[in-house]
């Protein structure tokens, strides 16, 4: 795990809200090796999600460098970032964010519309992704016909289907009960250990964080400490 998957160097990020400039990250530096599973913890407003957005290429830093998979993404244009995300990143969100009008398999297929794969290849990839998350039997169901845990599994399958180099998870179990949350976290752990996926996860839940290899604590936009998770 020595090769760096993510390298964040002296990153500042500020927003303007109304008339006020809000500084969120203050010269943050961080390195995440390939194959790592990192949990980002910290109080609300500490900059966890902002850091996650920068690593996932959803936002750009005010200053500093963000390298992911050896590519400096803070300098990419909006269109270049979109293409980069399609190839390199899978996102999992707290509220699943599935398309309600599509079945589970169609939701999982959505990112593959950006690839050159034919319909048959796409179907095969979708089937594999749904099998990995244990939802092959729910492929034809729409999100409203699934439980929260199942919806999140579909979201994970969607994040995985294009075989990204890094998974970005923002409070992936924040809307689930303990038992279901543990199942989802177990799945993420499996993806990390068995499939070698690098995972960066934001969570408020110390129990969830224990599923990660490392726990990073942020406060007021700065990295405080890192601990190694028990799991």
């Amino acid at each position: 795990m020595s090769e760096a998957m993510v390298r964040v160097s002296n990153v500042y990020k500020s927003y303007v809200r109304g008339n006020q400039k809000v500084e969120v990250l203050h010269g943050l530096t961080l390195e995440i090796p390939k194959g790592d599973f990192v949990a980002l913890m910290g109080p609300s407003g500490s900059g966890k999600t902002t850091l996650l957005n920068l690593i996932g290429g959803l936002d750009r830093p005010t200053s500093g460098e963000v390298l992911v998979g050896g590519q400096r993404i803070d300098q990419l244009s909006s269109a270049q970032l979109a293409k980069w995300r399609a190839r390199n990143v899978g996102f999992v969100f707290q509220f699943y964010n599935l398309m309600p009008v599509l079945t589970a398999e169609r939701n999982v297929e959505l990112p593959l519309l950006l690839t050159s794969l034919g319909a048959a290849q796409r179907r095969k990839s979708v089937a594999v992704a749904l099998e990995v998350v244990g939802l092959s039997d729910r492929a034809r169901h729409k999100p409203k016909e699934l439980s929260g845990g199942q919806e999140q599994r579909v979201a994970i399958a969607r994040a995985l289907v294009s075989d990204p180099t890094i998974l970005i998870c923002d409070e992936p179990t924040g809307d689930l009960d303990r038992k279901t949350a543990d199942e989802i976290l177990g799945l993420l752990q499996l993806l990390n250990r068995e499939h070698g996926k690098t995972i960066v996860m934001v969570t408020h839940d110390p129990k969830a964080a224990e599923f990660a290899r490392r726990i990073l604590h942020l406060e007021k936009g700065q990295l405080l400490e890192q601990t190694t998770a028990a799991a």
Partner: protein
Amino acid sequence: MTRTGFVFANLLRKKTRTMLTLLSVVTAFLLFGLLQAVNVLFSAGAEFVGATRLVTQARVSFTQSLPMRLLPQIESVPGVEKVMWAQWFGAVWQENTQLIFFATDPGRLHEVYPEYVMPDQQWKAFAETRTGMIVGRNLADQYGWRIGDKVPIFSNIFPQKDGSKAWTFDLVGIYDGKDQEWQRNTNVGWINFAYFDEANQFGSGRAGTFTLKLANPDQAAQVAQTIDAMFENSPDETKTQTEKDFNLGFFKQIGDIGLIVRWILFAVFFTLLLVVGNTIAQSVRERIPELAILKTLGFTDGDVLGFVLAEAAAICVIGGLLGLGVATVIGIAIGSGGNFPLAVDYRVWFAGVLAIIGLSLAVGLLPALRAGRLSIVDALAGR
């Protein structure tokens, strides 16, 4: 799944709303199709006749007649090949159905309007039968008239010498149009001028219009100018114009049809713009997080813009084509009646397709641009 499939899946998200919106588009384009057809119909003579014929009428109005003594002078103008005259008969069928009937010279009608096709035998019968009349195929079919029928026609302008408004004519011929377009205009009846002129109470030797067949269409302007100059400052000043302008002027007596149609369509489309535009905008507002998710998956700003624009276009295209299709069917139904040859033809469809494209852009572009410019971070944070 394809991108098109994704667009249609989104359209069916709220089926009732989509169906109602679609219905409003269908209705608007149905109206568009029919009104445009009316517009085309009213200027149709213009387009298929061209300037191979001129019409000379009284300068004041076509309701004023001109003396037949002008005929030799008009005929003598260089470039005039043949002249036909016609007098509006003011025909009424049965109680109150107005018909388009003119009194004319049969031989000259045949020569000036070769587009009317009828067996020589029937032309001959028309020329030789003083009480003869010929009618177009549409008119004959509409009233079930057959050759040999004695047809009673009233005139609300010209009573007979005995004061009776009832005339009886012998149907001696039924003409067709030389092509589909002229066939649609076979809703006119013609009676023998010689008989009409002799038998009517008012008048003798006067015609409403002279129709001039030109030897060379290029001379149209010159011929018109010469004729009008010839009768300038006389008691019978003339106005000579192309058949197109004459037809338009005739219909403009009931108002500027084009302007009326344009205003109605403007009102219809303005309302439609608000209805469909609001629906699309609302649909985008409801889906801001979903659109942001599409961007996280790697769809570009342009892709997302395209999805929203495609949804707007799909509603406009499907609704527009359905509306024009229904209008076409209604047009055929009305047109086959004969008296009002309405046709939603390629000109209407062409204008309709342009309107569909315009409407798609008008209702879809702003919401699409908004969706395209969406900031992922703000959208996911609910800002």
